[in-house]
């Protein structure tokens, strides 16, 4: 039954002390066979299952997750959403995503708290200025709302920023007003609920141990709940994609590293946009609860430890305090790390591979959250039609053979 959320359901349920809300999704045992298996129950994986069921009419789909929904990078990111990427290929992909974000709460009838508060990408030196101005122009040509703003305009947007009296003064920025943030857990839950309603089996606490293949075709997955047969398997496992791919004998150009983030104690509203700086490496936004959400860089070595080095946080905090002296005495509440899979060109892989029926959605590296709906949407198309959508065709794994890379190290905004 379709679960509708509205002011009336809130009132009705409050009368019974909120004890009678229905479960958002079932907790089924796995069947023996599925038409499509998605490995990984984060935003991208659940979204893929949702679009497969909704837009491509597939009925027999499973999402297999080793832990709980959205417990990986979907719940660990800094929730920034934007589409101001340099190259046409990326601009189309991230803009497709941003357009889906704009309608996602109403499509899912679930409040994902998408807030288009804009994003500033700061320039601190001549090279930054040139690079960002070029990117603004490229964005405009792709119909993306990006503009160049000077320090005076930045001061109006973010009065607390120290633009002059610092080691790396702020010389300008790109500004995308349609960018913003969303509640990351709600994205996973919203997709999960609606996918479940369309008949998708969401199987949690079930680890995929091996992707079984024979004669160049995928046979299914061996899991902690037994073997599950399927002719089509989509792997959406972020940092652990290399490990899973290796079980099918596939090598992907990915390196897994720890990326950290931290939040402060909650304070009154003080910064109402997202500010990112590539050069001094500090980015910050303020959550609706009032916490500053701060993203650090990746550690300089491969790791699966989900924690990261303290020196990386120290660098970020140093930059934050210089840019915003007002934050100097604040206390940080929590810090965590997630394992991100980074490609050589900082662009994702949304692709078939040499094994028939095996698909990969990976390589999002340090910035996958913003792409969740778009990535899920075109990946579902790729699996359903066994052919890339025109938006994700340039993101084939074959680009590392042809040499047609989509180099987005500049727009990725996180040092790695």
């Amino acid at each position, binding site marked *: 039954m379709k679960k509708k959320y509205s002011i009336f359901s809130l009132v009705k349920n409050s009368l019974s002390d909120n004890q009678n809300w229905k479960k958002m999704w079932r907790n089924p045992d796995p069947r023996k066979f599925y038409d499509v298996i998605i490995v990984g129950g984060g935003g991208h994986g659940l979204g893929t299952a949702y679009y497969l069921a909704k837009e491509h009419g597939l009925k027999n789909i499973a999402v297999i997750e080793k832990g709980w929904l959205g417990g990986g990078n979907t719940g660990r990111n800094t929730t920034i959403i934007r589409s101001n990427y340099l190259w046409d290929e990326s601009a189309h992909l991230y803009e497709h995503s941003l357009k889906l974000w704009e309608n996602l709460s109403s499509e899912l009838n679930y409040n994902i708290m998408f807030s288009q508060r804009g994003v500033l990408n700061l320039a601190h030196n001549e090279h930054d200025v040139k690079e960002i101005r070029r990117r603004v122009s490229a964005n405009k040509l792709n119909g993306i709302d990006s503009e160049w703003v000077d320090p005076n305009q930045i001061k109006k947007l973010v009065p607390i920023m120290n633009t002059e009296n610092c080691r790396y003064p702020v010389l300008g920025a790109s500004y995308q007003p349609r960018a913003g943030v969303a509640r990351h857990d709600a994205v996973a839950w919203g997709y999960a609920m609606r996918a479940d309603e369309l008949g998708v089996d969401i199987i949690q606490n079930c680890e995929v141990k091996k992707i079984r293949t024979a004669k160049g075709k995928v046979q299914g997955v061996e899991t902690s709940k037994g073997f599950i047969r399927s002719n089509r398997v989509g792997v959406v496992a972020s940092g652990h994609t290399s490990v899973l791919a290796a079980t099918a004998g596939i090598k992907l150009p990915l390196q897994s590293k720890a990326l950290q983030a931290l939040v402060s104690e909650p304070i009154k509203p003080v910064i109402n946009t997202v500010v990112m700086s590539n050069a001094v490496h500090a980015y910050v936004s303020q959550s609706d609860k009032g916490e500053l959400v701060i993203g650090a860089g990746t550690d300089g070595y491969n790791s699966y430890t*989900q924690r990261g*080095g303290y020196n990386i946080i120290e660098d970020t905090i140093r930059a934050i305090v210089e840019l915003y002296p007002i934050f100097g005495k604040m206390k940080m509440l929590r810090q965590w790390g997630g394992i991100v899979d980074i490609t050589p060109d900082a662009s994702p892989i949304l692709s078939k591979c040499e094994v028939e029926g095996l698909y990969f959605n990976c390589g999002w590296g340090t910035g996958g959250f913003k792409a969740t709906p778009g990535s899920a949407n075109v990946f579902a198309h790729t699996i359903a039609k066994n052919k890339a959508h025109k938006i994700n065709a340039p993101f084939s794994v074959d680009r590392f053979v042809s040499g047609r890379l989509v180099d987005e190290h500049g727009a990725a905004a996180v040092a790695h």
Partner: protein
Amino acid sequence: MFTIRCPYCGERDQSEFSNGGEAHVARPKDPEQINDREWSEYVFIRANPKGIYYERWVHTHGCKKWFNAVRNTSTDEILKVYKMGETPPPLKEFKNTIKTPSGEPDVGSGNFSVKKP
């Protein structure tokens, strides 16, 4: 965050070092003979295991010398450090603590620090 025993300077904080990625990647012997796919493997594809990993480090803020290390990427425990040019220790010398592909080892997994039982 961890410390690394530089074979020239001794034990120092990891932040003094820079990582050089996978160790022992050999350049193709006859580059003019190999095809694009083989070039792609050499240029772009590097090992990315969860578990035992052979890698290079350089003591950037110290002696500036390069050396190799064997590290468990699921715990960040450094198991062995050896100089450039020395024969890499065989894989069987190390106990891989990873039980399943994405599974966690007995100690030092996830958000917990490495500790000896």
